């Protein structure tokens, strides 16, 4: 019995080892093949980039040859009537930057506060579950934020924030002088802020965690309070990482489509330029989503893809800038390959 099982065992071992080691010729060929395969999958990324550039370029060439790039970017008309077709992207560029700017102004300080609480204040039995909840919030799809904003949040914001602001400041400051409706650039900005808080705060948390404790200890040993320690030792050390996190959040807000489509009011043409905080507006991505399936002519479709090209350029600039800053920080932080 025992000798039999030992025999089988060595048999299996032999088979396994001959499989693993293999013949020299097969092996070199197999290695080459595998190397080629993984190289090809990595190079597939380059292929996708080429497809992205080609698709957006080919799709928008018609509108850029008709209006010119500068003309398209600075134009304000959006007229799809046959024979009088004219398209310009300026109102939506402004709408995009304004709603994302509001998101940045509100979202980033809140995210920094959350990260400060998680890293510097909370004991681990609080920060663990709290981090979990915040990461959960990051997993919620933006369409659900949009649904919630459209049916729940817009009434709250109209009654509790916009109307009081309008009543108290509306007659003095033109910026607030429009009767609020709940579906406007301000609401969109706030919901975008809510959407980017989980992302920005978890990256900021990681950046602040990567700041070595010796930094904090030095400040504490000089008698600094917790806030002074962060202000003098933690934030300056991690400032490029924190800035990068904020810009990445901005990039997310700029590219966000669905929730904006539902709540920004979907104005078209020159009236989409927000003149007050409570104006209806439109962003680049929301106009694409709204009109793509209803485009009546090839030129209109091309204009929509042209909006995509403008959006692509804006987000590329934002993202590459942010990544350069974050990687500068990560190089300083400990960890990496063991």
């Amino acid at each position: 019995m025992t000798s039999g099982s030992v025999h089988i065992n060595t048999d299996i071992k032999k088979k396994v080892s001959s499989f693993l080691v293999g013949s020299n010729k097969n092996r070199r060929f197999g290695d080459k093949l595998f190397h080629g395969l993984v190289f090809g999958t990595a190079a597939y990324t380059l292929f996708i980039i080429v497809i992205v550039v080609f698709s957006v370029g080919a799709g928008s060439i018609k509108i850029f040859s008709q209006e010119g790039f500068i003309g398209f970017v600075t134009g304000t008309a959006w007229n799809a009537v046959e024979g009088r077709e004219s398209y310009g992207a300026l109102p939506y560029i402004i709408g995009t930057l304004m709603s994302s700017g509001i998101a940045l102004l509100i979202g980033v300080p809140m995210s920094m506060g959350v990260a400060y609480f998680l890293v510097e204040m909370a004991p681990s039995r609080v920060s663990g579950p709290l981090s979990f909840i915040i990461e959960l919030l990051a997993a919620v799809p933006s369409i659900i934020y949009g649904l919630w904003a459209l049916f729940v949040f817009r009434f709250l914001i109209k009654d509790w924030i916009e109307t009081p602001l309008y009543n108290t400041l509306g007659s003095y400051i033109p910026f607030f002088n429009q009767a609020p409706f709940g579906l406007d650039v301000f609401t969109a900005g706030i919901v975008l802020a809510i959407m980017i808080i989980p992302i920005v705060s978890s990256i900021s948390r990681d950046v602040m965690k990567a700041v070595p404790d010796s930094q904090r200890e030095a400040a504490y040993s000089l008698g600094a309070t917790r806030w002074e320690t962060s202000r003098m030792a933690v934030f300056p050390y991690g400032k490029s990482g924190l800035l990068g996190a904020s810009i990445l959040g901005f990039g997310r807000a700029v590219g966000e489509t669905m929730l904006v489509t539902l709540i920004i009011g979907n104005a078209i043409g020159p009236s989409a330029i927000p003149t007050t905080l409570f104006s209806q507006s439109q962003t680049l991505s929301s106009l694409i989503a709204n009109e793509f399936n209803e485009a009546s002519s090839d030129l209109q479709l091309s204009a929509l893809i042209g909006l995509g090209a403008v959006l692509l350029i804006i987000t590329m600039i934002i993202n590459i800038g942010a990544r350069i800053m974050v990687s500068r920080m990560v190089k300083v932080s400990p960890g990496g390959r063991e």
Partner: protein
Amino acid sequence: MSSSNNPSSRKEKSSGERPSKAGNNFRQTFQEISIKHASRRRITNKIVSIIAIVFVIGAIIPLASILFEVIKNGVAVLSVQFLTQPPGAIGSDAGGIGPAIQGTLITVGLASLIGAPIGVLSGVYLSEFATTSSVKGPKQRAISFFANTIRLFNDVLTGLPSIVIGIVGYVAIVLALNSFSVWAGAFALSIIMIPIVSRVSEETLKLVPNSLREAGYSLGISKTKITLFIVLKNAKDGVLTGVILAISRIAGETAPLIMTILGTSLFFTSLTGPVDALPLRIWRLASQPYESAHGFGWGAALVLILIILALSASIRLIARGKGIRVRTETI
């Protein structure tokens, strides 16, 4: 960077007993400030702490509200009929979201079949083949330049707005096939998936100790088999979390689907025809002016959120106790 923050401690270390003049000044000023403004500083500290706590509460309330509303309004419409039937006439409260659930499973499944292998193998290349020390000189420089380019482009792809990826799916596949199709949707979603999977795989594979690879080499095992049966096997949980993370991300994507799979109220017929999806259905329902449609929208949102939370929970179950770092968000 650190020297600019605490010059006094640095200076003292280097010059031994005698603190430099600058360090002395710094310490004096600091002591003066700390004594003079002790109570004000403590109050500032307290105020900042309170603000931070208020911000935390302010960040959590929306989550609570979203989950509460989705569950409250979603449960009200849930039924077997709702989950299995195609949508009824517009404005009526008959029918369900069967095609949307089916379409999401098919589109996301196909996208994963395309995206997961490519992403994992691309991560294998970046971790195992691009950092090779067996070649030297210009060839090695070329390889590391190529790898860095791939990493940068993966990052660029991660940052692309999903609506732009939808345009790519439309121009590259829909116009080529001359029809809105599942293929176009799956292709677009795989573009979102690949960089996430590639990055997580690369990071996980790099954490596999080199001694394991060396043990394999010393036994004369080929690199292919070391990679597949030793390195990937050791890192499989981490790689799997990356794949599931990417799936949970694309399951909620709406924008690319508008111009690729279009959405329909019918069940799936073929891979070259249009199909419905949950996020798309939520959007269409929310845009309709009927109460019943809004109710259905909440129900579809509940189903979608349950799918995504189940995926997130499974990531955590896989990662638990294995020291795998899970990030739900990807930058």
